[in-house]
């Protein structure tokens, strides 16, 4: 461990804005990317379900 205190750690020797700006935005970008990919997967599944449902509906119409 190289830090003497918690505030020492967050101060980053005066470079806090630059260091935390880099780590923070990188972490945020990754969180957004993961949520975005999850959303896209859910959307794909929902799309397939709608198509499948539509298919069964039209089949029922014809057979009626």
């Amino acid at each position, binding site marked *: *461990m*190289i*830090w003497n205190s918690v505030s020492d*750690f967050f101060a*980053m*020797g*005066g*470079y806090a*804005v*630059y*260091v935390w*700006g*880099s*780590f923070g*935005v*990188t972490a945020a*970008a*990754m969180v957004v*990317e*993961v949520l*975005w*990919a999850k959303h*896209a*997967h859910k*959307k*794909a*599944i929902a*799309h*397939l*379900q709608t*198509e*499948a*449902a539509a298919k*069964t509906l039209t089949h*029922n119409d014809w057979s009626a």
Partner: protein
Amino acid sequence: MVTKLIYHYASPQHFYPLAGRLWPLFAIGASALAVWGLWLGLFVAPTDFQQGEGYRIIFVHVPVSWMSMIIYLAMAFWALIGLTLNARLSGMMCRALAPTGAICAFLSLWTGALWGKPMWGTWWVWDARLTSELILLFLYLGYIALTNAIDDPRRADKAGGILALVGALNVPVIYFSVKWWNTLHQGASVSMSRGSSMEKTMLTAMLVMAVAFWLYAIAMALYRVRSIILIRERHAKWVTALPGVSPTPAEGSA
């Protein structure tokens, strides 16, 4: 044996479940290495004698910059396979990689600006390294825009594939730019011919973070390609028969 396996998993139907089993492994690996790398980089690695604590940006800047180039080369590889062997999956892999690549290129420029300001006194200069990395970001965005603009997926893959291949010429330009031109950007700290000029803990932390980002990129691509496969193959029987997709018997028989 190997060829047989490759042909087997080149079919979206077989690759879909494989990718589903693999992405969590890569995600776990990426998380574990990120924790280790961040611990080393933020708590163990010593202060730099020239740049103080500001140098710690290296632990994100170098990995995302490397990944921005590696992902582009991976896209060019899949594009080449797609254009020559006409394998359907390669176009999907290409598209699954692009968003992560674009994010890495953006982060490379962002963290670079935040590093440049305190060390060089400027957020940005139009020098070879920075400009060629900016072009890389535009290539990613161009690829995404182009493939999204073409409705027919096979034609979109082809057009995007050509862009990915031609754009790959930019990658060696980025890599060697610090050698070929006078630039504000420092030379490589790690070189294949000279080894490393860095302190050992710093180097370990950086390499661990680089592998973490690599695994993260693979996990994201595998995760994303599954959604692409589902949409592209939505009329295939195996997709409509998937447990989460097919209507329940009670609904269907009504």
